[in-house]
């Protein structure tokens, strides 16, 4: 990272160029530094509570402090450390590995990072809010996390920070999916990708639905805490509504944590053994199969909650079956080495270590999946052991291997192999001392700040010693990296002899700004790399059209809003102002065509040859939106089904929500869908007048819809039906509220489109903006077609 902003970005001021950069490699470095920083924070927290647990009846941390430290540790390690660490390497290397000069949407990429940082800032600030931060454990069970039992403001801040983080990741996900599908070098088929990029694609396909699916219960939590809805406090919703929605996200999340590290391990194994990956198509299929399986296993986290026996047995089976694709992957990696010439380097040691630890974690997972054994294991340190073996062993140890592997390319420096090997030994010893004995504590509850059973003492002491050893391994790791930056000898372009295997080893270390100085990489059908030379330089080296201040300013705005909302209203106003200014500035840049994206005209785009980047991006986003709205609807179904048990009567049709108004709005919205489509068709023909007219009609209809909606809300409030009246009103307000805010966002974009169309910006028959708008508007229409019958007719 020593090369700083100058080499990548240029420009007069290195600080400004880091803040305003949109280059994927710089964004990657920012992610790397930030996620490692958060890792240290969350790790230090863990040391404090390991100290507390080293002996029975210890008094270093009280229950309050323990619960907060433990919660923050879990949330940070899972959401702010592991995935962003993968994202760091992916930002840096996926574009290079696929043969692109940058991401499809560089500014959105910067935005992802800055929102990630601001979510982290809000989350950490919550620690210092009056009453402290969230203290309910990472899975936030209800009703403990409701306002009644945990009134502290810091808890709401944490929920807000999580929403921000999920939004940031979703932006990144859309970007990566478009990038990987549409920016590949000529001849680069999906299966040509190195495993790391392939794995990152699989990860993003999971992220695309899993993270929005987590936003759903979080939004309900935030409205419960801030607006007084009763999703988790009423008998119809209640604790199980949260638990189902949460774990529906929770299990996919663990794959998200695992796959980037595991797939990097596969690359390192192939490179170190100098062998083609064994049965690569099977590895890819296994990843896809596992992603699908992760939809149908969530109840294995709820085996003790009283789910019907037959269903539990079904989830037992689906859960066991997920180990099969992972077994296929592990065995394929081992078979890769057969017949190879294995060079044992530091990355290779960590790769093998990661695989070994993952195997142990997979084995203990099979125990958990047994509905009968789960009775004895659930809620104990055994489970803590299991998931640290899989996540820290499989995922993070794999990412450590990947950092070593990629380091010379990123920095242009070698690290000390001797120190690296020592690090490996300390890492493995510390890890196993820390996590293995946890399996012996299968009677000890997790998440207790202390325990009275003396017999658990000695094992806990060993665990704590392991924790400090493991921490020392991390300190050594950072020391090795700093040492390499300061003293490391210069790295060659291809330190691992991996040039035939992956593009990044064919370019200088560190890579130049647009990655490929020899021309456009291209692949022969047999996977041989050649270079298409372009005469004429890549976009001007001297002007810097790829700097943009707006992503950074958006993030300043959201941080201020996030902290201010809970601690200081003026700060919120300031944040809001920054936010709006940034959005306007961004739009203005676009109107003036100021920001240039560097994308090659040729390349591999299967299976999306017929789309453009914008429409594919919007379609992808819409899938994410469906994953957000879908779970809320299933919550609605869950609550209505529960009402039959609790005896709660849902309002009859017309009793609360006037059918005529709903019908009127349905007609208005479907008509606006029609006008939006007309606008799209007209813009494709380059008919300026009709485009402007149709867009304006859409705007008018959208505003009419919102007006009627506002009137309905007003009337309801006047009749005393508020957010918290009952579960029916909670769902009505939140679902129509989410829908209306989506509509509002569309309505706010329309003036921009109208202006641009009016000025002739779409005369050429190319109007990606309008196409995106039409897709989005169509989605919003369809959501209404679900809301209308659910609340007005049924």
């Amino acid at each position, binding site marked *: 990272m020593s090369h700083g902003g100058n080499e990548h970005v240029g420009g007069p001021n290195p600080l400004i160029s880091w803040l305003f950069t949109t280059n994927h490699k710089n964004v990657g470095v920012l992610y790397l530094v930030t996620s490692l920083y958060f890792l240290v924070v969350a790790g230090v927290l863990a040391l404090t509570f390991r100290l507390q647990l080293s002996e029975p009846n210890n008094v270093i941390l009280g*229950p309050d402090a323990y*619960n907060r430290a433990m919660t923050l540790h879990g949330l940070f390690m899972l959401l702010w450390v592991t995935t962003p660490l993968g994202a760091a390497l992916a930002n840096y290397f996926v574009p290079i590995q696929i043969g692109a000069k940058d991401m499809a949407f560089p500014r959105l990429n910067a935005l992802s990072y800055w929102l990630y940082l601001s979510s982290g800032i809000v989350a950490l600030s919550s620690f210092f809010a009056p009453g402290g931060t969230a203290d309910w454990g990472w899975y936030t*069970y*209800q*009703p*403990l996390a409701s306002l009644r*039992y*945990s009134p502290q403001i810091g808890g709401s801040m944490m929920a807000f920070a999580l929403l921000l983080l999920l939004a940031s990741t979703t932006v990144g996900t859309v970007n990566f999916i478009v990038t990987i599908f549409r920016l590949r070098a000529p001849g680069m088929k999906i299966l*040509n990708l190195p495993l790391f990029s392939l794995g990152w694609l699989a990860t993003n396909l999971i992220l695309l639905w899993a993270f929005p699916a987590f936003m759903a219960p979080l939004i309900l939590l935030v409205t419960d805490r801030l607006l007084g809805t009763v999703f988790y406090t009423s008998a119809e919703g*209640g*604790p*199980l509504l949260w638990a189902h929605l949460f774990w529906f996200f929770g299990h996919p999340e663990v794959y998200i944590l695992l796959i980037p590290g595991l797939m990097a391990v596969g690359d390192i194994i192939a490179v170190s*053994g*100098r*062998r*083609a*990956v064994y049965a*690569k198509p*099977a590895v890819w299929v296994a990843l896809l199969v596992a992603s699908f399986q992760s939809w149908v296993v969530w109840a294995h986290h709820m085996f*003790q*909650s*009283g789910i019907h026996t037959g269903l539990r*047995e079904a989830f037992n089976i689906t859960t066991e*079956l997920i*180990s*099969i694709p992972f*077994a*296929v992957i592990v*065995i394929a990696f081992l*078979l*890769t*080495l*057969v017949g*190879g010439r*294995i*060079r*044992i380097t530091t990355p290779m040691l960590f790769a093998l270590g990661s695989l070994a630890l993952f*195997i142990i974690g997979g084995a*203990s997972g*099979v*125990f958990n999946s*047994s*509905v*009968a*054994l789960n*009775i*004895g294991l*659930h*809620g*104990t340190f055994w489970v803590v052991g299991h998931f640290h073996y899989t996540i820290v062993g499989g995922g993070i140890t794999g990412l450590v291997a990947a950092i070593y592997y990629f380091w010379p390319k990123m920095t242009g420096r070698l690290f000390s192999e001797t120190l690296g090997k020592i690090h490996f030994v300390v890492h493995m010893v510390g890890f196993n001392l820390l996590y293995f004995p946890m399996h012996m504590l299968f009677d000890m*509850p997790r*998440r*207790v700040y202390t325990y*009275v*059973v003396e017999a658990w003492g000695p094992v806990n002491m060993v665990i704590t010693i392991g924790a400090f050893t493991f921490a020392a391994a991390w300190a050594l790791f950072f020391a090795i990296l700093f040492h390499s930056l300061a003293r490391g000898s210069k790295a060659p372009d291809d330190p691992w*002899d991996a040039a*035939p295997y992956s593009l990044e080893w064919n370019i200088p270390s560190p890579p130049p700004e647009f990655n490929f100085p020899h021309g456009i990489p291209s692949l022969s059908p*047999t*996977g041989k*790399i050649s270079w298409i030379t372009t005469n004429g330089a890549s976009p001007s080296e001297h002007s810097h059209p790829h700097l943009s201040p707006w992503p950074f300013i958006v993030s300043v705005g959201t941080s201020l809003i996030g902290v201010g909302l809970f601690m200081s209203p003026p700060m919120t106003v300031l944040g809001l102002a920054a936010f709006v200014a940034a959005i306007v500035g961004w739009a203005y840049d676009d109107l003036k065509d100021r920001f240039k994206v560097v994308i090659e005209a040729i390349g591999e785009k299967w299976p999306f040859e017929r789309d453009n980047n914008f429409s594919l991006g919007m379609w992808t986003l819409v899938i994410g939106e469906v994953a957000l709205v879908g779970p809320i609807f299933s919550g609605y179904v869950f609550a209505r089904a529960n009402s039959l048990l609790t005896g709660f009567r849902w309002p009859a049709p017309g009793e609360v929500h006037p059918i005529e108004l709903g019908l009127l709005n349905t007609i208005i919205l479907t008509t606006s869908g029609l006008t939006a489509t007309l606008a799209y068709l007209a813009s494709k023909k380059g008919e300026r007048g009709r485009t402007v007219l149709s867009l304006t009609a859409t705007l008018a209809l959208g505003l009419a819809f919102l007006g009627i909606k506002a009137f309905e809300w007003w009337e309801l409030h006047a009749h005393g039906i508020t957010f918290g009246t009952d579960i029916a009103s909670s769902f009505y307000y939140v679902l129509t509220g989410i829908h209306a805010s989506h509509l509002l966002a569309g309505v706010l974009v329309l003036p921009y489109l109208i202006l641009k169309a009016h000025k002739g910006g779409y005369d050429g028959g190319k109007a990606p903006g309008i196409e995106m708008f039409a897709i989005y508007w169509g989605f919003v229409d369809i959501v209404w077609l679900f809301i209308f019958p659910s609340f007005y007719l049924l």
Partner: protein
Amino acid sequence: MVELLTTETIWYSLFWFYLMAAVTISALVFGFMTFVVLRYRTKSRNPAPSDPIDEDFRLGVSPKRGGVIPVLVIVGGLAVLFFGLTLSTFHANEVMEDVSHSGDPAPLKIRVEGYQWGWIFVYPNGKKLDGELIVPVGKAVQLEITSRDVYHAFKAPDFKIMKDAIPGRLNYAWFRAVEEGEYLVQCYELCGVGHARMIAKIKAVDPGTFQNWYTS
């Protein structure tokens, strides 16, 4: 005296079965891993340009590497193993779950109420104990578990029984103490600052003593 069925013996025999399977499989995989690494390891590697190994080492899929058969062997082998494990799990689960398998025609029925932070046990005759459950040795005890406030989880690790205690819901479990003594009951779901201290005990006494206490 005939040996009475207990939940913990069922659990432990299942656990050993799984453990044996896990140790065997992991030993095979680790053995294979060690073998491969040692066998194909090289200290100095200066691949000649014509090194035949290199031919396959490139971007993309090697046509020569990887067949369907190993994949089918893994998938099939694990499927068979899991079939065995699952059947024994389902069998154990059925017994652990349903008090009618205890062989006791008239189990003692107790209502368990978790609260922040403790456990209340209610007997059929209305007797109520806070923090202690007294049961007669040898008798099957059926628990009806719920919560008065937040999400808790009832567990008695010595008997390997557990069920979540959820407000508004009832969950069931059964156990049988075969020896007199005191056994730990604790909450296994984070429920606030008192979670770690949400402890109670099960006191197993001989049936005569129990009867005296119960009817007093």
